[in-house]
Structure formats: structure tokens, C-alpha cells
């Protein structure tokens, strides 16, 4: 059984942290197919967070087909994450490397590259502000 922890200073919303921690546990093999996730009650009793937060996280994981809920019993892992998902995205990695070369030639230092990337990343996420 895994245990969740909450980083209140990370700026990442609690439910996403739970989702990430489940994914990470799957990647590392700490969670295997058929394992039960902690019940909502157990999680909130430890973390003192709103039960809806946990429910939302579990629903998200269910949406990604990683877990499945069995009513009255609990939430169980349905699929393990393979160890090399990143390998499937080689074309994207290649594109990224080329862009980085261009950025360096334009004279940007590391921090500027990071700032440019994050700014573009965020504002494209903003395009879906509720």
C-alpha cells in the first residue's frame, strides 16, 4: 500500500500531486496491477485534506485507465505503466533538441531559455482558462 504526501509549497494542486504520486509509484513498480489504493477515508485521515480532492484524483486516474473502482470494496490498479514511455516520443525529443540548438544560436542563456519555454507553456495552457 502506498502512502501519499502533500507538498503545500510546490504550487501544484493537491489532486494533481496525488495523481503524480500514483503514476510515479506505478513507474517505479511500487504499485502493481491488482494492488489496492488507500481508501479515501484513509488518505484524508492522514493528510487532512478534503475528500473530494482524493475522489477527483482517483477519477482522473480512472479516466486514464490506470485504476478502476470496485464499489463497496475500493480502488484497484488496473494497468502498470511501462518503463519506457518516453522512448515512444523520440520524434518529439528530436524536435526539442533542434529548437534548443536554435535558441542557443540566438544567444539565449539557460535561464532565458527556461523562462521563454515556461511562459509559452503557461500561456498556451491559459488558452483554456475556465
Amino acid at each position, binding site marked *: 500500500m502506498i502512502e501519499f504526501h502533500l507538498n503545500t509549497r510546490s*504550487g501544484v494542486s493537491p489532486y494533481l500531486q496525488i495523481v503524480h504520486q500514483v503514476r510515479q509509484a506505478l513507474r517505479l513498480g511500487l504499485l502493481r496491477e491488482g494492488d489496492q489504493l488507500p481508501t479515501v477515508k484513509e488518505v484524508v485521515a492522514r493528510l487532512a485534506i478534503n475528500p473530494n480532492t482524493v475522489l477527483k484524483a482517483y477519477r482522473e486516474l480512472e479516466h486514464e485507465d490506470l485504476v478502476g473502482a470496485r464499489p463497496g470494496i475500493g480502488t484497484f490498479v488496473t494497468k502498470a505503466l511501462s518503463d519506457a514511455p518516453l522512448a515512444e516520443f523520440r520524434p518529439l525529443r528530436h524536435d526539442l533538441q533542434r529548437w534548443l540548438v536554435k535558441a542557443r544560436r540566438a544567444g539565449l542563456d539557460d535561464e532565458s531559455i527556461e523562462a521563454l519555454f515556461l511562459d509559452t507553456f503557461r500561456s498556451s495552457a*491559459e488558452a483554456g482558462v475556465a
Partner: protein
Amino acid sequence: MTPAVETTGLGKRYGRHWALSDCTLAIPTGRVVGLVGPNGAGKTTLLSLAVGLLSPTSGSITVLGAEPAATGRQMERVGFVAQDTQLYSTLSVADHLRFGAHMNPGWDNDLAQRRLEQLDLDIGQRAGSLSGGQRAQVALTLAIAKRPELLILDEPVASLDPLARREFLQVLMEIVAESEVGVVLSSHLVADLERVCDYLIVLVSSRVQVDGEIEKLLASHRHLIGPRRDPSSLPKNQQVIEASETDRQSTFLVRTEDPILDPAWTVEEVGLEDLVLAYMRRAPLAKRVRLASPDVEP
């Protein structure tokens, strides 16, 4: 769906001072609602009105569709923990359970016993000799064992040390997960509320400044940082909550339902604490903002 708490123009006056004025709210059921504001803002007044310990000077309030404390039946549905968790200091914890059993038809004694066992309390102990954290836990047990639909907690953790505070919130969340009871709790600590609440009401200077689901509030408020501009030059759909400026730069906290398209801005999300503080800093006479209509003039 009947709101958990519904108020219309609710006000309470003591002598010449209005502790609460013009409060219009519809708090949904099944949520954990945080009521935040500085001391003296009217939080205790509002919650006391909700449990019938006070009666309104103006306006009206209904809780679970009925007048607070008008009938025993209505009172069975609401559990309350007062600030400083008053217990009878000469009565033992066990006596408090008997008290609860005799005063509440819906009393679940097994639930009460289980909760107290988890707390590792000697139930023969007099309530006066318990620590603050233990008293708060006993008071919470009393409130929940009557199996209410709504729990109202007035600053339950204000005078507790960090560990006792955390333990109280853990127990509270466990109760919410278990029984789907609605909760309204007041605090002046935003960090606590951020963990446990999904709905927020900001009360400053006896008026409601803003209220709504926390997710929606966070999604609809943004910091805009950019070259200096007059606040009134912003588009109508962006309501300025707070503005500050230097000679070159302006920073606005705005509220909007729509995406921010102006490329001149650096747009950042706002943390809940900053959001609350911004509303707390607003002029005391600022009109209340309703979630549904951001076009209202500030």
C-alpha cells in the same frame, strides 16, 4: 437542492455597531465551506445566527430550509462546536456522552465511543482537566454523534497547537469522508482552509466580500503584471480587485471568466492566501461580488 445555509440581507446590530450587515449567501450542501476573515469581521456572529444562539436584527436566515433552533427537529440536523469549545468542566467525558445521548434523539453512542477510543482518552476524566486539543476533539465527537446533516464549527482550531490542529482536521476530514456531512467552519488561518475546504466565504468588516467554490475562485483570479496602466482602462470583463504600481509597472489582481489575451501582460495564477488577503485589503465599504456576474461595478 435546499442550500445548507441561506441568508437574505442578514444583519445583526449590537447597540450602534453592526456586527454583520447585508449578508446574502446561499451555501450549498455537501461541501466543506470555509468562512475566513479577520477577527471581529462577523464570523462568530454569522455562525451564531446559523445555530440560533443569536436572532437577526434585519434580514433572514434559514438553515437546511428551516429557522435555526426553532424546533427540536431542526436542531437534530445541525451539530455545533463553539469557539473555545465550551464543555462542562465538572462533568466527566463519559457524562458528556450521557448528556449527548439524553439531549439528542438521533444519538449514535457506538460512534461516539469509537471516536473517543481512537483519541486515547480516559473517559472518566473531568472535562476541565483536558487539554485544549482534547476538549476540541470531545466537542467534535459530541457534535457528530448526533448524526447531523450539517456541522457548524466556530474557529475550532484557533487556540490549538499545530499538532492538535492537524489532528482535529484529520478527524474532521475522516468524518466528512465517512458520512458526507456538510461542514461550515470559520478560521482566520487560510492555510488550514485551503487543505480542507472546497467552498470559501470571505467576510471582512461585517460584510461578505466574495464567496464561491475554491476551484472556480482560483481559476477566475489572475495576477497581471505589465507596463503601467490605469485600472479603468482594462476591459469590462476583467474586474480589478487590487491594483498597485510603480513608476514603470502595474500589478493587478483581476477577476474574469474569460481568457486574458493581451500579450503585454505577464499572467500568473493567484494563491488562495493572496486572493483572500487582497479581498481583505479592499475598502470596507466595497460592495459584495457575486460569482455569477463579474460585470458588476466594484
